[in-house]
């Protein structure tokens, strides 16, 4: 019976072949480590956020007079409202933690390199969507941090040439962040996750076309791939178990640890809290914004600091396959960059003093320099590694890649020759 139904469907819709091609039999490198779990985890967190968010929206009111109280209503009166809200708030942090780890893995193992550039760029787009969604969601509780965070960030658009002031008023629908702003942020915060789902589909289509990278950085022969199911379904599920334990510790035992106390004060447009800080996941970028003394320069630097990752496929010019594993200088750079990120995060968190501003400026410089010097360092590292002697297999690989490029160039030249 079940067989008949499946046959009936398969004659009309490629269900079985899709499941085989993209889920069960999807070829996956056998040497993937647990660092390759985080894409799957990001998908799970997205689903968690969608579900808790939809149920929260059934009780939330997007109106300046009611939104703060409706959060209290959710926390105190709605059945399990506290759980939905804590899951959603913790989920936002979890989402960024998972995504940052996912990106760090990509950078460390050089997964952004050819042929995975489009995969990396669709991921970059997803990061921007995630940031926008998180930012708009943070206004909804209508606390002091919500209000002033939204004020500062919408003000960034004042840097738009010529029509900056009008753009800010247009974004807010008011002269200040107000009722119009809150309502549109709610509408967009509800819309964006579905846009993200669409973008995730594109990300996965790109992934399934180029397949996963792996810790060696070398594309494996077909015999070294194993089917996704059961090998990686079980590995992903194990990782999910660990993730859910950590997530639950935050949700059930320390749900307020990632929330700013000032956000328990209703928004007051007349008083800015003495110490306004964004959520932890925006701190490094916020520190870069604060480090540039010129306003427009600060906005540009902050935008660049997020977008620079997209340039990595062009910046990394080494022919040594893979990422940090076989490239000591790249590895050193990677860890320096991580330390610099943490330092920037700290600078973004503390109250600005002359000293922290200076540290922030140095860290900002290091941040941009670490991208700027990738081409030089990767090229120098390559010749150093070759001089020092690489395993014969790697040299063969590099030569064959060089041959292929030369062949393509030759073909192109011949084609052009025929035409002219």
């Amino acid at each position, binding site marked *: 019976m079940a067989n008949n139904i499946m046959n009936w469907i398969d004659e009309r819709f490629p269900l079985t072949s899709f499941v085989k091609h993209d889920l069960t039999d999807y070829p996956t490198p056998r040497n993937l480590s647990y660092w390759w779990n985080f894409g799957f985890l990001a998908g799970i967190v997205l689903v968690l956020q969608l579900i808790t968010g939809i149920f929260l929206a059934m009780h939330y009111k997007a109106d300046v007079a009611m939104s703060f109280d409706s959060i209290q209503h959710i926390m105190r009166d709605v059945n399990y409202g506290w759980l939905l809200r804590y899951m959603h708030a913790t989920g936002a942090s979890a989402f960024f933690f998972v995504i940052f780890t996912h990106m760090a893995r990509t950078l460390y193992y050089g997964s952004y390199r050819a042929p995975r550039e489009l995969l990396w760029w669709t991921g970059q787009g997803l990061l921007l969507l995630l940031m926008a969604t998180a930012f708009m969601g943070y206004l909804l509780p209508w606390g002091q941090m919500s209000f*002033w965070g939204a*004020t*500062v960030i*919408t*003000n*960034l658009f004042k840097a738009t040439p010529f029509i900056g002031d009008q753009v800010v*008023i*247009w*974004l807010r*629908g*008011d*002269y*200040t962040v*107000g009722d*119009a702003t809150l309502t*549109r942020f709610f509408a967009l915060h509800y819309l964006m996750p579905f846009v993200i789902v669409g973008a995730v589909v594109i990300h996965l289509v790109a992934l399934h076309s180029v397949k996963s990278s792996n810790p060696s950085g070398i594309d494996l022969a077909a015999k070294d791939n194993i089917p996704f199911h059961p090998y990686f379904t079980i590995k992903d599920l194990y990782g999910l178990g660990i993730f859910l334990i950590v997530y639950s510790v935050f949700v059930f035992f320390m749900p307020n640890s990632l929330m700013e106390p000032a956000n328990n004060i209703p928004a007051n*447009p*007349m*008083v*800015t*809290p*003495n*110490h*306004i800080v964004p959520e932890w996941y925006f701190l490094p970028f916020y520190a870069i914004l*604060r480090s*540039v*003394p*010129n*306003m*427009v320069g*600060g906005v540009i630097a902050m935008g660049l600091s997020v977008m620079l990752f997209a340039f990595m496929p062009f910046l990394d010019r080494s022919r040594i396959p893979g990422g940090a594993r076989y490239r000591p200088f790249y590895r050193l750079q990677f860890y320096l960059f991580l330390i610099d990120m943490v330092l920037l995060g700290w600078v973004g968190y503390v*109250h*600005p003093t002359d000293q922290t*501003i200076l540290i922030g400026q140095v860290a900002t410089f290091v941040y941009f320099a670490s991208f700027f010097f990738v081409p030089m360092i990767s090229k120098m590292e390559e010749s150093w590694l070759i001089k020092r002697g690489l395993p014969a297999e790697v040299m063969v690989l590099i030569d064959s890649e060089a041959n292929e490029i030369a062949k393509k160039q030759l073909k192109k030249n011949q084609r052009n020759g025929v035409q002219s």
Partner: protein
Amino acid sequence: MEHENPSGGNRRNFLIQLTSVVGGAGVAAACVPLVSSMNPSSDVLAKAETEVDLTGIPPGGMHTVAWQGKPVFVLHRTPEQIKESQASNGVIDPEADAKRAKNPEWLVVLGVCTHMGCVPNKEGPGWVCHCHGSVYDDSGRVTHGPAPRNLEVPPYHFLSENKLVIGKA
């Protein structure tokens, strides 16, 4: 009649281009109401003027009033504050104090930091914005970045000695 070359590209290309342009213009026109709906609505625009009673503000004191939802600082300056403000022209965005205060005794400025829109605190002489560390003097002029411009002076006029209207010069 020129029907010799019905498959000739010119006529077809022209029609395709024309249709694309008209279609594109139609889509752009359809976006106008959507984009415009996000601009301030009439009730928001109606909050344009605010009246302030000055009797309760002692010399050296400051009141914060709401105008268009934004805070406006009304500072009753003492003779020393006036003298100090008139002595310099500011640092980052030079402007004479006489241009900023119609009546030197009263300084009326928007309490919105020109950097990122936080509300500065009255601290020491002038204001300090705690968001990013900008400092303003008692004329609302920026003396220490990152703010690029002085605190904005809104349009205002005095109805009588003790009555101030913000929103109209």
